[in-house]
């Protein structure tokens, strides 16, 4: 059985670091941070996402793929050549690491979309085109799985403890301005690399610790907008909700956060007229998008890292600042492991969010 055939509840560790000045640093810091929370994982899933690592291909979509069979690669490459201009195709470099079982074949492609429509009709832009293509590959080509599809960023993940995964992917050789990591404690044995986290859709990535109790309605809501939830994971739901609300509906990012972890009515009622109107409308129109149950989440995308905690804080989430670095994680220790003398440290409150952005004018 693999992810997508069943829903697997997990406990987890999450951690994230961003340099708001856009200064790039290698994968060692994030690895130390997540490794410090070893107890929160059980070796059945670990992963990282790094932003700013492919500056030379900044404008191309970087597709990371895992293949279970040579046929899957053949079919996928045929599909890619038909639908994209492939500028570069290469094996993702890996090294020896203990604790890692048999890995699938791992490839990456730097591509540019070549068409304006999919078999389901025209698409609005390249992002929609890439999303649709990724969904097609993942659902139609048996044994192939796209696990990263953004620009100037990449997801690296697999079955193992996160620190072993980092060594396996040689993350110390990459330099990014923002890193997010995840260690997983699933309640049974998925053993499938694609099921590890982070989850990436375009340049959005999500890691999360918890279980979304509203998954059933969140999923049905997304299906109304033609999202297919192949993996049956909460992370997938969160990623797609951000995609739908922010990218497709244009809801401001902060309000997207306030929709997913909606304020309580008693607090909305206390607000001024503008706030009441805004939040009442959000809760009514996007009630099915509200996330219920215990979770802490880090959502990242080009230049931005968001920490989000559930409505009644059933999962831990700590933020800290050191110079131009903002850090987030499940435990304060994970932050202090990287920067023992934090300038500032605070807990994200129930239902609250913290958004860290690149400083004005910084390009990456």
């Amino acid at each position, binding site marked *: 059985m693999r992810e997508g055939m*069943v*829903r697997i*509840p*997990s*406990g987890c560790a999450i951690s994230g670091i961003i340099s708001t000045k856009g200064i790039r640093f290698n994968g060692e810091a994030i690895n130390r941070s997540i490794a410090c929370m070893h107890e929160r994982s059980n070796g059945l899933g670990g992963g990282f996402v790094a932003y700013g690592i492919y500056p030379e291909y900044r404008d191309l979509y970087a597709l990371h793929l895992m293949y279970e069979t040579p046929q899957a690669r053949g079919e996928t490459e045929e599909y890619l050549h038909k639908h994209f201009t492939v500028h570069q195709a290469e094996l993702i470099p890996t090294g020896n690491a203990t604790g890692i079982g048999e890995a699938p074949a791992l490839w990456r492609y730097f591509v540019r979309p070549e068409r304006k429509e999919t078999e389901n009709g025209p698409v609005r832009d390249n992002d929609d085109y890439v999303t649709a293509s990724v969904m097609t590959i993942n659902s139609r080509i048996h044994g192939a799985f796209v696990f990263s599809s953004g620009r100037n960023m990449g997801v690296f993940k697999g079955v193992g403890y996160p620190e072993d995964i980092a060594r396996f992917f040689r993350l110390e050789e990459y330099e990014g301005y923002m890193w997010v990591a995840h260690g997983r404690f699933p*309640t049974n044995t998925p053993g499938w690399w694609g099921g590890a986290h982070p989850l990436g859709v375009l340049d959005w990535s999500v890691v999360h610790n*918890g*279980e979304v*109790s*509203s*998954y*059933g*309605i969140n*999923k*049905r*809501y997304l*299906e*109304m*907008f033609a999202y297919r939830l192949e993996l*049956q994971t909460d992370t997938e739901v969160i990623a797609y909700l951000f995609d739908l609300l922010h990218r*497709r*509906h*244009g*809801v*401001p990012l*902060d*309000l997207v956060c306030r929709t997913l972890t*909606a304020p*309580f*009515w*008693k607090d909305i009622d206390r607000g*001024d007229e*503008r*706030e009441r*109107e*805004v939040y009442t*409308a*959000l*809760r*009514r*129109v*996007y*009630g*099915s998008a*509200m996330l*219920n*149950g*215990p979770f802490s989440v880090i959502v990242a995308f080009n230049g931005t890292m968001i920490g989000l905690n559930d*409505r*009644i804080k*059933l999962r831990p989430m700590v933020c800290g600042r050191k110079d131009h670095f903002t850090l987030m994680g499940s435990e304060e220790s994970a932050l202090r492991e990287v920067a023992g003398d934090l300038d500032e440290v605070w807990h994200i409150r129930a239902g609250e969010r913290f958004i860290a952005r690149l400083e004005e004018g910084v390009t990456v």
Partner: protein
Amino acid sequence: MRNYLPPEYIVHIDQDRCRRCGECVRTCAFGTLRFEHGAWRQAMSVFQHGRDDLERVFDRIRDNVPDRVAADNKKCVQCHYCVAHCPEGAISIQPNPLAYRGNHHWEPHHLKNIWLQAETGGMVLTGSGNDKAYFSYFDHMVLDACQVTNPSIDPLREPMELRTYLGSLPDALEFESGPEGPVLKTRLAPSVRLDTPLVFPAMSYGAISLNAQKALAKAAVSCGILMNTGEGGMHEDLYPYAHRMVVQVASGRFGVNPGYLRRGAVVEIKIGQGAKPGIGGHLPGEKVDEGVSQTRMIPVGSDALSPAPHHDIYSIEDLSQLIFALKEATEYTKPVSVKIAAVHNVAAIASGIARAGADIITIDGFRGGTGATPLAIRDHVGIPIEMALAAVDDRLRREGIRNRVSLVASGGIRHSGDVAKAIALGADAVAIGTAALIAMGCRLCQKCYTGNCNWGIATQKPELTARLDPDRAAENLANLIRGWSLELKEILGALGLNSVESLRGSRLRLRGVGLSDADLQVLGIRNAGVGA
């Protein structure tokens, strides 16, 4: 022939406990009970009128035969009014144990109805909802709860939200930036807020008493929910509660005028009703007294017959016109609801109604109640609300128009468990009619059409309506709403949710027990034992 119809119930009076107060004899509106004078009274009358049979009288006095309450069993409908009011608890009522020759095809009720019709040549009438032993899907669905991997939530210690809005919604919102923060640009359609996802459905003044309507209206106001005028207009006494009332426009247009439309919180077009899909209403002239006449705008004593269809709605585009006519009349300030009975093609019909401009769709399943309906219709037409609701919610989602309408489900909702299951299947709110009547005293005797309701609910007879104290009944109703709301919060908490919208349509939290694959598929749920 009728005389040969055996009684359905046997009234038993415990003569030892009976203190001969006469309460039951005076109050039974069906005239079941009477005093049989015992020996002492007969003796007294003999002393007054002559002494011819003095000897026999003295024999009886010797035998000590007292005054006694006697019953004409054939008249008893088992409404329990006498049972509930006998100060000595001396009355008990049993089904007539009379045995019929066992027959799996011809059951006693079939025989009795044939005898009745052989005598009267009419339709067999009845009240309340379908009481036949159809399969209950509610009873074959179970809810989920949290264990270990996610914590359940304690509603006594954490906020637990039931607030619900009914009204049409856009798919997306637009904002613009303002000095204080983002400002909402999208204008939302009118809506109504419920403090808990429950409403009282349409029960007209005429079918039920003004006191019963007052009780419902008071409870709706105190609970922050809605009551519904039904098709009988709005009596003046209810104006103070109008902001919590749905004003119904049915095929007879009784009591409909601009003031009526503007007064209510929601305007509802009644197309159909679960207890009698496809047929109109019938209020017998006996129930049309001065008050009903004023409110319905019809002469005293005249039958109020509403046509089976709206004669200005023969198709979906006609419905759309009426929806917009009502929106015009209320200047687009109130949501318009359309109520339909659950029938085979309910999903396509609902989708048409949503596209025709309705803000709310009320679907009434085949267990829904009524004041009067032919038995043949009540028991054999329409489909269960569970199936109808699941099919409608599914269809609206598949067409991407679920946000356009709110769904209210009704028809046989018996407890908060049914409410939670209906919400998980996709209902925004649930309407409870029969349960509300029961809270006011109704015993489901199904005799509402006779106008003799002993509990003062489905009657206009002043001596009977006076039995229902609107304040007391309102309190009972409010207690019921409160009780169910508390239970809903417990259910949500057990599910690890703290807001009702996270359960709405979340069918993953339901499992089927003992359902067929086809049932599971229509309901969109998995079988018990199948994990997430």
